[in-house]
């Protein structure tokens, strides 16, 4: 079943991200240059293990510190939205993540140092961030793996559409740890090979990256609009999608209907796995015939729960600049002809679809356009 989850256009009043390359502007520029943030790193950090593609913030180790080493970088990103004006009744905050402070729980287990525990739970991690940014208590926490950020955006949009808020701040962060890297390595998808999203080859592999982002949503202000948002949950299998690709199609259908006749490009999820990448590429080609498909996880790695906001910020930077980065790291043959390997001029396009997918067959997509 497919219908739009949110179809009242909401404005993107502000949006930025943090990756190992820097903010959205710097990240966009690095992607245009075809640079990779990923490099081989021991999957268990201090304790070694296979070398897998990870992209960590400069100077940050995989093993968590106390307090977490990522906090200062997150504070710098969120400086424009710090202060007691946020987290109030009319200016709520939605924090989204897949992992929150789970790296601190790993550090607790490995070192026995009790001080890590306070930051290890979702609420403990968010409380750390809330106090550091000086926000009030009106903070919602959403966690649904790699579609977490999209859920925050939908909830924020609904608050605005219902007149229940004046502006909503959506924040997303996911910083790597041996907990996360070890888990994906155990799933045999974080392997020694660099990821090449949408490339047709014999084996798949992902990379993982540190990432954070924020968006301020408003009813009236901002030069971009989130026109339509959709969600779909297959509940087919934890790590596999329905083989007919219907889950991907269901999430994209409302956007395709709303954007009929318009020229769009698509920022896909594209982690570097084979089956999901193939199904996604085919679903995109079906829903948006002729639309170029790009994915940036071959450079940045998969930033997990934060990927929806990180990549939204880069998509907005792309629309603002008129240039869309290509699918960094990938080469022919690709799953479909629509996969854009090189950067392209987007000034003739009406907007972009941004899509993400998650464990459990969760799908999310939004239509981003100039307001």
């Amino acid at each position, binding site marked *: *079943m497919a*219908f739009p*989850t949110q179809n009242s256009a909401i404005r993107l009043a502000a949006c930025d991200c943090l990756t190992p390359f820097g903010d959205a502007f710097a990240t966009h520029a690095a992607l245009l240059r075809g640079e990779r943030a990923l490099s081989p790193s021991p999957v*268990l950090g201090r*304790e070694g*293990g296979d070398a897998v593609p990870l992209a960590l913030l400069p100077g940050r180790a995989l093993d968590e510190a106390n307090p977490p080493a990522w906090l200062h970088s997150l504070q710098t990103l969120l400086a424009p939205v710090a202060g007691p004006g946020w*987290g*109030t*009744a*009319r200016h709520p905050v939605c924090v989204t993540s*897949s992992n*929150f402070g789970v790296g601190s*729980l*790993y550090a*607790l*287990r490995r070192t026995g140092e*009790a001080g890590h*525990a*306070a930051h*290890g*739970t*979702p*609420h*403990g991690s*968010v*409380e750390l961030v809330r106090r550091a940014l000086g926000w*009030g*208590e*009106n*903070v*919602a*926490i*959403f*966690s*649904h*793996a790699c579609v977490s950020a999209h*859920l925050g955006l939908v*909830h924020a949009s609904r*608050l605005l559409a*219902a007149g*229940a808020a004046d502006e909503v701040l959506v924040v997303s962060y996911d910083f790597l740890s*041996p*907990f996360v890297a*070890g*888990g*994906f*390595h*155990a*799933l*045999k998808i974080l392997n020694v090979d660099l990821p090449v999203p949408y490339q047709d080859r014999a084996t798949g592999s992902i990379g993982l990256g540190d990432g954070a982002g924020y968006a301020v949503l408003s009813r009236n202000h901002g030069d971009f609009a989130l026109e339509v948002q959709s*969600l*779909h*949950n297959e*509940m*087919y*299998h*934890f790590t596999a999608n329905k083989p007919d690709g219907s*889950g991907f199609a269901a999430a994209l259908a409302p956007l395709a209907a709303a954007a009929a006749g318009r020229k769009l490009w698509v920022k896909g999820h594209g982690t570097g796995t084979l089956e999901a990448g193939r199904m996604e590429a085919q679903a995109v080609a079906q829903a948006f015939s002729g639309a170029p498909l790009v994915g940036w996880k071959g450079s940045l790695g998969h930033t997990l729960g934060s990927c929806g906001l990180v990549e939204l910020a880069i998509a907005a930077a792309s629309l603002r600049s008129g240039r869309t980065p290509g699918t960094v790291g990938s080469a022919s043959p690709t799953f479909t002809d629509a996969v854009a390997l090189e950067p392209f001029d987007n000034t003739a396009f009406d907007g972009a679809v941004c899509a993400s997918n998650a464990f*459990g*067959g969760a799908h999310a997509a939004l239509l981003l356009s100039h307001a």
Partner: protein
Amino acid sequence: MLERYIQAVRTDAPGSEEPAATRDRLKARFAPGAVRRMTQLGLFVGAVLGELQPGEADALVYATQFGEGRALEGYLDSFPGASPTLFQTSIHPSGAQQGLIGRQRSVREFFPLAGGNQLVATAVQAALLSDAERVLFCGGEERGTWLVPHGAASDRAFAFALALTRVRAADSIGRLALEPVADSAGALALPDWFELLHNRRPFAGAVAPGWRLVLEWQ
């Protein structure tokens, strides 16, 4: 004001029941062989939610403060040979997904929330803001072990599931609403919310900055 009507409530208060006993008690509610990999929270939530028969057009809101405490403990203990099963099941919102995937039940929208003092308020908000005809609001906790003294796992177990409809019907058994109020502060913790549902007690009070929750029973 945001409001919906309560069509059905299911609760489970298993006390200090151990996971093996939970599997024995609830396994008949799931497909043969399905429970071997399910967490205790997944069994609790899957059972109460299953009674409400989630459908493709429903929206689902899921709230848990600590999630899969034992899977988390087991996964952390499994290093350096990290267990893929425990990794998978320790990831929020596994507790709700286990039962639904076992039954192959897709849902229109799924909003899993985490949190502390604002968890109930924000979860109710997500439920009441949905435009689905029926919203299923579920959640709960399972008891952890070594993470409990660190405040990183729950020390009690419970589960609940509510069916909420947009329109009052002849079989409605209650009403759930969020009213905007000026300058309020308040909180309602998930265990306290469970007690309200389990004992069919009414509530009216501030639960978050700017919001007053009303729970009425008929």
